[in-house]
């Protein structure tokens, strides 16, 4: 999936050494990257470090990103996820070695280039099913059914604007559901 036009221009600017473009990308995506890092690490200081590092790495090596292969958001989220998972694994190893040697060391899973590990993706799907029916329906049509806002509206018999705000509400509820589960 190709990146949106805005992503391409921001990428062009960063490749051309325009630091104000980095600032704009930070303003747009830092809360997402921080939120994602926080969910995985559950440590605000570590999440801040990871957030900082994700944007620095993008600035330092902008050609590692290819807009033909996906959005900037997905690219940065993937880097953040990988780093956050690496951090959690390193912490676990430290705890394990503090407890002494074990006979059977679990084979560490290979960090994949994804935003969500399989069990996390399952949690998101579970959280969707916990939403009230009308919200869940709109969300499923839009994300799993590949419908546009207009099509979601048509299928649910409501104007496009109403469908859009219902999906937004559903996303906020989903975020709450995911957060509650973590507590």
């Amino acid at each position: 999936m190709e990146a949106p036009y805005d992503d391409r221009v921001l990428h062009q600017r960063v490749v051309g050494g325009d630091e104000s473009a980095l600032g704009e990308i930070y303003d747009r995506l830092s809360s997402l990257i921080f939120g994602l890092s926080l969910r995985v690490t559950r440590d605000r200081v570590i999440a801040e470090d990871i957030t900082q590092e994700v944007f620095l790495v993008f600035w330092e090596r902008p050609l590692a990103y290819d807009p033909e292969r996906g959005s900037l958001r997905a690219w940065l989220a993937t880097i953040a996820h990988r780093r956050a998972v690496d951090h959690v694994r390193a912490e676990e190893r430290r705890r394990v070695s503090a407890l002494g040697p074990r006979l059977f060391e679990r084979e560490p899973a290979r960090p994949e280039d994804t935003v969500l590990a399989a069990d996390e993706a399952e949690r998101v799907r579970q959280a969707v099913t916990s939403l009230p029916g009308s919200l869940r329906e709109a969300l499923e049509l839009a994300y799993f059914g590949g419908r546009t806002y207009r099509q979601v509206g048509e299928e649910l018999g409501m104007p496009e604007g109403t469908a859009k705000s219902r999906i937004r509400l559903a996303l906020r509820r989903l975020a709450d559901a995911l957060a509650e589960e973590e507590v």
Partner: protein
Amino acid sequence: MDPVERLYLDALMADPAVPAHSLRPQLLAGARARRRPAAPTAAWAEPYAGRVAAMDALLAEAADDDWSRVIVEGWTLQELVAHLAAKDGLLAASVGAPVLGPPIDTTDSLARTRDLQAYERSRSPEQTRRDWRAQADALCRHLADLDPATAATLDGLETGLGDHVLGRSLETWIHTADAARTARVRLPDPIAEHIHPTADLCARLLPWTMLFSGMDGGAGHTLHLTLTGDGGGEWRIPLGAEETTPGTPDVSITADVVAFCFLLGGRGDPAAFPAELGGDLALARDVLTAAPALSGP
């Protein structure tokens, strides 16, 4: 992207988490330390500063054996960077900006290229890269106070400084694309604001490429050139090198703006160039055939 991942990211964005304090100032300071931004310069020289930064970003990706790989003209990546530094250095010398490397004793860019390549071969690729970038950035800073209309000479060609700098921008862009192709890295185009003045230079060069190719059919004719894509536009170009005001167009060419800049830069076969031609077709084909005439190595 997987729909569940997209849903997850959209949910996170609907519920923003905010760090205790803004990391933005720290980020920008840290960024500057990790990779130098484009050098500050006059607005008309920014396309050049941007291409230098992009080339440097590509060089940052180069591993040890990439430096000895032949890119173009039989030159390795290190020799190619020395070539860019050679021509940048000649322009720097002509406007009184600092020149790095051995003292300049020629005005010929190929002779200077050979001197600098010989000098750089005894140094590490990182040293070559560092001096090329330092010299280019110093040139950008020097240009900040100059008028682009100032006459300057490069390779025996005297014209406005602004056009020489755009020429350096185009050459740096084209060689970055050469090196990116070898490295299998996808190089994004410059932003539209940087492409447009470069395309304008290429359009204005057409009467000269015709003249230089010995095609004298252009006199008295006016070309309507339409360049499509970001940074494109429309031009009316009198094809006789002596003419300054365009007449009524009697020949037209429509093409992609980036492909057109690259054609002028000697990349692409004029006979196979994808363009829509109109009016005097034989003349339009002559314009395209002559287009690469001023591109050197």
